[in-house]
């Protein structure tokens, strides 16, 4: 259900940019969503259809690009992807280090919009 709050955030930012560029209508909205967020495209679209009613973004298609979770090895500094749902044994494939930090997977960004 948190998609509703996120969707309201999307609408606000999109309308601001669309108005600045004198758009008549927003056709699509591309989002970059880190794997750690439980954000489902279908729900985003449903909530967006609801909150955007009567605005120039009504009917816009939400496109989500999921960005994978990656960690950075503290020993060698190289990044590699991890399976966030199964984290029992994480070994750096480059140096076998076991100390890692989350490098990506928490993004929640509006990348671009298509307007007419």
């Amino acid at each position, binding site marked *: *259900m*948190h998609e509703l*709050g*996120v969707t309201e*955030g*999307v609408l*606000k*930012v*999109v309308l601001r*940019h*669309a108005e600045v*560029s004198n*758009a*008549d209508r927003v*056709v699509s909205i591309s*989002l970059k969503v880190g794997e*750690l*967020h*439980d954000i489902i495209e279908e729900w985003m679209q449903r909530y967006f259809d609801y909150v955007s009613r009567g605005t120039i973004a009504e009917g816009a298609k939400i496109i989500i690009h999921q960005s994978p*979770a990656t*960690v950075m090895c503290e020993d060698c500094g190289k990044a590699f992807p*991890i399976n*966030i*749902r*199964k*984290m*029992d044994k*994480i070994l750096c494939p480059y140096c076998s280090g076991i*100390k*890692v*930090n*989350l490098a990506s*997977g*928490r993004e*929640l*960004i*509006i*990348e*671009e*919009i*298509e*307007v*007419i």
Partner: protein
Amino acid sequence: MDTIRLIDIKEEILSDNQDLADDIRGLLLKEKVFMLNLMASPGAGKTSLLIKTIRQLKNDFQIGVIEGDIESLVDSEKIMAEKVPTVQLRTGGACHLDAPMINTALEQIDLKNLDLLFIENIGNLVCPAEFDTGATCKVMILSVPEGDDKVLKYPLMFSVCDALVINKTDCLPYFDFNIDLLKERLQKLNPDIKVFEVSSKTGEGLDSWCKWLETEIKAYNEKLV
């Protein structure tokens, strides 16, 4: 024919919430109020831990509570019985608290006479993780009956918190809860997180949790000088 134009945005979706949260943090720093956002599933023991913590710390700090856990007044009545100022947010069916809601609550609180302000967030491990409330510190509770695999199911929550309180450790003999495995998984996601093993019921572990909190508050206040 209308041509489609592409507009490059690259902007955080929750930037409005984030900006307000940063403003709140600035205000709290100025007023020397340490705000702790407490998050957990329903029934993990948020209210019990709060009450036990308030009892241990209330001689040293002026404490207040923002109570957001759904509509009923059950929790805020329990907290008010501890004689600390409490603001009940009417959140209806909301699944999380965000910066605008906390901002509204702060208007009803006398920050001048406060050192420590707890937010009891809505019982949920998904949504509250997404929204910065402006808190100085984020803490989550995981209770033993919930299981040690929750870090795999709710990675965002575990990744954003400064501390994890494993509550209801008095139940450990009855559950297959592997604390070492949990810590190992947590280490990968959030190596800096502090972990406390607590039983609000027996009082075990409360001292080290309260001690840590006390140290954090003192460090925060020293940052101001």
